[in-house]
């Protein structure tokens, strides 16, 4: 080990970072998939139920509901379930925050070691290399805004100051995106930022899946890399559709109508968590 290149350099004993470099790099790769990627997929599927939720309502429960009404109802149910039934929700959230912070900080540090050269070498893969880094930067800003405004309640960052509430999941979301009941210029900007953020993050995830397979050595041959590339394209396209449909319904829905549905759901089940305990006390 020590003999080969000791003539040119006298390396100081390796730092902690250098000793654990491999582990750190691979943890960076891994956290992008678990837990961040897994959460992203679950999150997009849930959100896209705004579009397909009508189909998810059990026959008999949703008599006479339109597509939009069904979507709102189903999505509100999902949100209530997550916020009242999922155990250790805070622990899950903290895990995600830590993972995202780790992936972001290291991602920026690693991205700064490269210099994009797409103007000279305008290959598609080189563009994806550049876009992977750009989408990371924008994605960090977007996730921060998204979580700060809708989860942590930093309403001073929301045009119109709407506070998101899990009891009024759709109507408050629509207002936070539009900047109020009606569209405002700032609301349009926020909605466009959502479109950009969602699109870039899904690209980042799908392209990251593709590169991770090379990094870990799963796809070696050029044809394996190409085939896995098609698979990632399919995954990315599916998630794009989910993300765009969720955002589309969220900005286009009438907040008053959504609020009416949410209010009636709240009246019907004012304390959802207690309900589950009813069967227990009966026994």
């Amino acid at each position, binding site marked *: 080990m020590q003999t*080969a290149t000791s003539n040119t*350099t006298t390396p100081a004993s390796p730092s902690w970072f250098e000793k654990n470099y*491999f582990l750190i790099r691979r943890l960076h790769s891994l956290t992008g998939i678990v837990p961040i990627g897994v959460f992203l997929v679950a999150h997009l599927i849930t959100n896209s139920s705004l579009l397909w939720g009508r189909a998810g309502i059990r026959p008999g429960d949703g008599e006479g509901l339109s597509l939009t009404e069904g979507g709102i109802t189903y999505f509100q149910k999902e949100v209530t379930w997550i916020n009242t039934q999922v155990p250790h929700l805070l622990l899950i959230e903290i895990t995600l925050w830590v993972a995202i912070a780790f992936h972001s900080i290291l991602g920026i540090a690693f991205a700064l070691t490269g210099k994009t050269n797409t103007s000279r070498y305008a290959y598609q893969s080189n563009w994806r290399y550049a876009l992977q880094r750009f989408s990371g930067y924008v994605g960090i800003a977007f996730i921060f805004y998204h979580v700060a405004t809708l989860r942590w309640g930093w309403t001073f960052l929301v045009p119109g100051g709407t506070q998101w509430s899990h009891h009024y999941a759709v109507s408050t979301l629509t207002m936070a995106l539009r900047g109020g009941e009606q569209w405002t210029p700032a609301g349009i900007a926020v909605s466009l930022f959502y479109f950009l953020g969602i699109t870039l993050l899904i690209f980042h995830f799908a392209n990251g899946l593709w590169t991770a397979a090379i990094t870990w*050595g799963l796809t070696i041959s050029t044809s394996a890399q190409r085939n896995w590339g098609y698979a990632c394209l399919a995954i990315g396209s599916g998630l794009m559709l989910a993300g765009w449909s969720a955002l589309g319904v969220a900005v286009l829905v009438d907040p008053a109508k959504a609020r009416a549905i949410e209010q009636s759901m709240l009246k019907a089940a004012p304390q959802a968590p207690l309900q589950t305990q009813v069967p227990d006390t009966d026994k």
Partner: protein
Amino acid sequence: MITSLTTNAANQPAKPAATPGRTITLRIKRCDGPGKPSTWQDFHVRPLKNANIISCLQQVALNPVTTDGQRVAPVVWDSGCLEEVCGSCTMVINGKVRQSCSCLLDDYAPNEGDVVTLEPMTKFPVVRDLWVDRSRVFHALKRVKAWVPIDGTYNLGAGPKETPANQETRYVLSTCMSCGCCLEACPQFNMEEQPKDWDQAFIGAHAISQARLFNLHPTGAQLERERLEVLGGVGGINDCGNAQNCVKVCPKKIPLTESIAAIGRAVTIHKVKQFFGR
């Protein structure tokens, strides 16, 4: 025609025959030495039939007068084999890196008045004009011990047999000429003037591929662990960003991205084994 010429010309559309007796312009980025500023100078050249960049540079050397009539020092470049096997004549031609000996003017400047730009590679220190110092390429090969360890005090006898399948995989890898094209085009490989920084900066696709070549060699495999140890560390395989420019510019069509993935797998396995005490 040398086959590699056709491969390099493959991304150019088929063109009508070049105009004989035409005058073209070589726009050359000049630099008097390390740390000196660079300037552009234009030279008129009348390319001979089937001329390559080197023969045009020879014409410039015969009469180093710029297009505005200034007599200047002859342009310096590096070359050796003149048949795309030594890699020393590598430079940036019309914005893309390649060998100047295999770059034909009939493809690049077929018409009267065409301009061809020549720059030294940007990732290596300039010695003078188009000549760069590629020591770091060879330093990287030393880091990954890109050789078969057979030195000793007695005759080791015949080595283990090589299978035809293995030979087939290895052959193309063995054609690497350390030219540096894959490094010049790589967004993760940046200029490092100081040799002391070379062990921390990204090692580059060629050394990763050569490590694979010698890991696949029945006797060369003895050094596999040491190679993987280097490639698992800072500046190793993990610093590749998968832009895959390397494989597109490699004049030898070496499947560099396959080598990168293969070494990625080998390092993964090596590290897992190491974690469990092997």
